[in-house]
């Protein structure tokens, strides 16, 4: 099918309880007002909103693309999976690059809405217009690498079919279970793999023969050439191409960005052993790219020998080098690569998994966690971490507790364990320390999915890598300072949220300006769309997703930071600094138009075209 103007114009609705598949039209008003990705997903979620618990059959799971996906614009490969999160109980969003999103568009669908629960394990097969559910009895229990290989072989080979799959962690309802795309790209955050597992949906296979046709071809060619050139000449992109996200370790230790020992220390001598140069010189076999990406930040690695031997496969990103490295004071790089492979196979978010293990190590050290089945959880012990990864995926022994995520585990442990949790709204913090960059602290605190480093552009703005001055941001924000950060965060969200819904990778967007993205949307969809429209869309999409999280129970008191992060470090590059959260929150609430209890104000919702949400929030009290 041809996706004219960027949209296929239809969704695939899958009722797993009844086994019914329906091709439903996509409401063009929704497409115009909410674009795609998680923003459009949130609007569709509200249509089905019942307050259903995350792992109940009635909780809808949405796999969403956007209008740019499937074009050859740089970085537009992404898709979002969203639902009520089993980890946080709030709005859950995980995003992913790779190849699945474009292929879904080529097959003629803007998204998939899954409800219900299959009686037996199934997988969904989409071959253009032909769609069916097939038994996954023979696939249940297999890891993501295995099931991906089997399904690709069964359905046309490595290049012809694209696969989304869960591993054992999703089947076992680990609350931070991930979803793999072709075994190489992962929907990591907020436990979307567990929602798939709860529905007994093992995998989705898609094959498509269509294409995406921009509405304004001449403008499209111009913006494509312009943005490709910017991506090729950008230093951010050059660094990414050279060392992937792992490069950030070397810089981050100098700026106070890298969290150490469950966020309690500012210095760790082992970072040079686990950073970008070491990964590249000792374990890299090749770089790799997502669909339509000139940057190619992916690292393919292999550990040839020794106790941590792995097959050739996707290497650890910066986040994983931290969560299985600095978070637990481990400087053994092959051990981290092994942990990454296990998480990929079982289907676990490497951020939440490593962070939960770091939390458990501190609990063990402080005597809060004693019943470990004889396992000693010592700092720096990667062998124990590897054992725990497996225990978590299969919910064995102490893994059954840790599979609940750090906050839920702490509530069960009691004895002050909650003070050792480093999460916001139940989502473990990614590896950027707010004590080095206060604005990131505000982002974490107010994030609609919890502590998030991706649904905004603050990482690039606050660190001075791309000021996005055309959107009203500045190039001179001081990291360990709370001054002016509320406005910075607001504008960074208004840029980053629509980028997420356009499904462009933020690494590509970090090489561009706000207007470039607006021009992309205009060229593909054909409607007049400028930078102002982009920022207004960002405001609407942020408020919408905030409102969904409010409907699911979040209040002002959930907009906070964990005790560890509010305590200044004694050493390291950010020593003595902590975010002035109270001040930033007060300023942000005013600017964003949030009422004291944390809901968006009615007048703000009505002004941004979200009157229907105001009604729902009023009903929810």
């Amino acid at each position, binding site marked *: 099918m041809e996706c004219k103007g960027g949209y296929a114009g239809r969704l695939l609705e899958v009722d797993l309880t009844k086994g019914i598949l329906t091709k439903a039209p996509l409401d063009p008003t929704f497409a115009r007002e909410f674009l795609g990705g998680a923003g459009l997903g949130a609007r569709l979620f509200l249509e089905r909103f019942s307050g259903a618990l995350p792992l109940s059959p009635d909780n809808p799971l949405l796999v969403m693309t956007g209008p740019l996906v499937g074009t050859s614009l740089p970085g537009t490969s992404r898709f979002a999976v969203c639902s009520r999160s089993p980890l946080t109980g709030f709005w859950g969003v995980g995003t992913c690059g790779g190849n699945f999103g474009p292929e879904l568009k080529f097959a003629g669908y803007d998204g998939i809405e899954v409800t219900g629960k299959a009686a037996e394990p199934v997988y969904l097969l989409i071959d253009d217009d032909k769609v069916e559910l097939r038994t996954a009895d023979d696939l249940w229990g297999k890891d993501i690498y295995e099931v991906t290989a089997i399904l690709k072989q069964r359905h046309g080979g490595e290049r012809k079919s694209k696969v989304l799959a869960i591993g054992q962690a999703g089947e076992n309802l680990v609350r931070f279970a991930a979803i793999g795309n072709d075994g190489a790209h992962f929907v990591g955050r907020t436990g979307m793999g567990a929602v798939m597992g709860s529905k007994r949906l093992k995998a989705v296979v898609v094959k498509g023969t269509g294409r995406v046709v921009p509405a304004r071809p001449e403008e499209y060619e111009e913006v494509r050439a312009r943005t490709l050139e910017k991506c090729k000449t950008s*230093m951010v992109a050059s660094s990414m191409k050279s060392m992937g996200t792992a*490069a950030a370790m*070397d810089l981050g230790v*100098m*700026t106070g960005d890298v969290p150490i020992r469950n966020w309690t220390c500012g210095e760790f001598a082992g970072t040079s052993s686990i950073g970008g140069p070491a990964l590249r010189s000792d374990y890299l076999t090749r770089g790799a790219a997502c669909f339509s990406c000139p940057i190619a930040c992916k690292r393919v690695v292999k550990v040839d020998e020794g106790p941590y031997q792995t097959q050739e496969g996707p290497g650890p*990103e910066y986040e994983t080098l931290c969560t299985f490295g600095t978070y637990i004071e481990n400087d053994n790089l092959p051990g981290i690569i092994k942990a990454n492979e296990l998480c990929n196979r079982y289907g676990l978010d490497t951020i939440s998994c490593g962070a939960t293990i770091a939390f458990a190590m501190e609990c063990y050290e402080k005597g809060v966690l004693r019943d470990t089945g004889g396992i000693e959880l010592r700092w720096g012990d990667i062998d124990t971490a590897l054992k725990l990864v497996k225990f978590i995926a299969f919910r064995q022994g102490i893994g059954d507790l840790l599979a609940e995520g750090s906050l839920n585990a702490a509530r069960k442990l009691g004895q002050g364990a909650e003070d050792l949790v480093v999460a916001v709204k139940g989502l473990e913090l990614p590896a950027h320390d707010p004590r080095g960059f206060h604005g990131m602290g505000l982002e974490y605190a107010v994030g609609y999915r919890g502590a998030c480093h991706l649904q905004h552009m603050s990482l690039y703005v606050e*660190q001075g*890598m791309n000021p996005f001055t055309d959107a009203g941001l500045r190039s001179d924000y001081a990291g360990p300072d709370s001054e002016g950060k509320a406005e910075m965060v607001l504008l960074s969200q208004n840029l980053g949220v629509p980028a997420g819904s356009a499904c462009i990778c933020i690494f590509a967007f970090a090489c561009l300006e706000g207007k470039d993205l607006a021009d992309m949307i205009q060229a593909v969809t054909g409607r007049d769309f400028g930078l102002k429209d982009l920022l207004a869309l960002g405001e609407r999409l942020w408020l919408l997703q905030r409102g969904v999280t409010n409907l699911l129970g979040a209040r002002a008191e959930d907009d906070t930071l964990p005790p560890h992060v509010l305590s200044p470090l004694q050493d390291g590059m950010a020593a003595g600094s902590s975010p002035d959260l109270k001040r930033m929150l007060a300023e942000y609430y005013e600017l964003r138009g949030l009422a004291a209890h944390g809901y968006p104000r009615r007048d703000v919702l009505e002004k941004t075209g979200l009157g229907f949400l105001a009604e729902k929030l009023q009903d929810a009290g």
Partner: protein
Amino acid sequence: MGMISVRLHGVLNERVQQAGDRGRAGGELRLPFEGAVKVRDVLERLGVSDKDVHLVFVGRKRVKLDEELRDGDLLAVYPPMAGG
């Protein structure tokens, strides 16, 4: 005569061709100098463009391009590097 050590990090390290003097993790370059020398002078000598530089440190102190250097200083130069 004084001596300054320079570590170029990431892609800057790859771009500066100093055969035999480069190593992994920002191999250290040793540059002799006479008289007053600033960070930007060192970058120019190495053929590194200002606009490709994100942050510069002398030891653990973050400095600007106009910072004057002293004998024995260790300069660390970083391009933008983004994690995710």
